[in-house]
């Protein structure tokens, strides 16, 4: 009688041993579920409209191919006089962002040359927090479909890169006061 009881006990132990590793593996798998949201990396995932160039100014090489680059920091007197740098002007000037050799490109700190249509990567070098928010659609305007195709705007669509503070605009008319309704 007691022998049989022991054999039942062993049988149960075998069954438990058979199932337990699986259960442990399952629990481990659940713990590995990704907790961070998808990081969107490639430029293709940010559908942006063309950069807001002043009409007729692009490609820059149209004029600049004739001009020898002058890497000396100076106040521009002949051309681009309308550009007043109001964006950490003490720390940088034109050629920190515009590439001296290829004027149709922007230049990252790493030396990488990028298109104007990818300018958010340039801005993101300093404004990492805004760049992070922009990528997930929290900073800046995003239009299109809330559950489908979305449209982004480049930083430069709202912020003049040379003077980035958003400029005040005229408000639309206030509501009618109830006392004026007849």
């Amino acid at each position: 009688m007691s022998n049989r009881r022991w054999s039942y006990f062993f049988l149960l132990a075998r069954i438990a041993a058979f199932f337990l590793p699986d259960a442990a593996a399952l629990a481990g798998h659940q713990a590995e579920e990704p907790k961070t949201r998808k990081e969107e990396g490639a430029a293709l995932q940010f559908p942006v409209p063309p950069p807001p160039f002043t009409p007729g100014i692009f490609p820059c090489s149209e004029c600049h191919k004739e001009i020898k680059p002058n890497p000396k920091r100076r106040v521009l007197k002949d051309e681009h006089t309308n550009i007043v740098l109001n964006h950490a002007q003490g720390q940088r000037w034109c050629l920190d962002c515009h590439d001296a050799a290829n004027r149709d490109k922007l230049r990252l700190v790493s030396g990488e040359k990028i298109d104007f249509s990818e300018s958010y990567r340039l801005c993101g070098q300093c404004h990492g927090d805004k760049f992070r928010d922009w990528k997930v659609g929290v900073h800046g305007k995003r239009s299109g479909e809330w559950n489908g195709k979305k449209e982004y705007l480049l930083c430069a669509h709202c912020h003049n890169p040379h003077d980035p503070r958003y400029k005040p605009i005229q408000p639309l008319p206030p509501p009618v006061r109830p006392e004026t309704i007849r």
Partner: protein
Amino acid sequence: MSDKETRERKIFRLSRRKALKGLAAGVGALALPGKDASASFWEAFFQKNFRELGKDDLRKVLARMEKEYGAQYGRAVKVKATPPIEGVQYGYALDLSRCIGCRRCVYGCVRENNQSRDPQIHWIRVLQMNKEKGVYLEEAEQYYNPAKVPEPGYFYMPVQCHMCKSPPCTKVCPVQATWTEKDGLVVVDYNWCIGCRYCMAACPYGARHFNWKKPGLPAAELNPDTHILGNRPRPVGVVEKCTFCIQRTRENPGRYPACVEACPVGARKFGNLLDPESEIRYIIENKRVFIFKEDLNTQPKFFYFYAT
């Protein structure tokens, strides 16, 4: 029989019962439409509450409305009854650090949702508040009109329907003409609303508006893409409110609400609260979020946040 008795028998005496009968008949006759009433009037008169409409009934109702509005505005009007999308709870977030108070959203909403132009109805109210006072409603100003906004020292807080999870407005409706849909939208059945305006008194956000007169909506400005619970032309004497642009957002894929599209600074964010990848979830998980009149426990699905 004396003269007096004869007279009493013949004279018309108005008893309480007779008076009530006559009154009821008279009032009933007044309520009847005249000879110009069309069949569609009677159909509208006997139309059931939206939530009790069967599929066939609904189709007939939509067809009737399209015909009616088509005749009224002289152009084709589409009236949809798109049902909620499974697994969606709409949420809205507004960045107080970005809003400049330009009121582009107010007029974008008016154009999209066919609000009455005259008398004027705005579903969005933009409050200007002093930065030193914070959200202090006693000194909030909605009639500000400087040459340029934002004015230094002020911040701006647009207020519209908060799509409360525990909405005081639907609780007070005596006829259940307003309710919460499965996707969290609080909607109004304009045919069922009796215009008592209890909901307007109950709403702590001032988000509901009453059509005191027949809405003045020029046919040229009509948005013909409408939803039966949203932006279809309203009759006089009913309450209306923001629906997060139900006619846009219930589509799949659906466009962002008109106010999101109109905002020039990108302060308005919209998405599905049940989707962990949505921008609205990112905001709630990562930003400083503020709920307007949180102490009333209305549990809004509209959040204010401060992104910087």
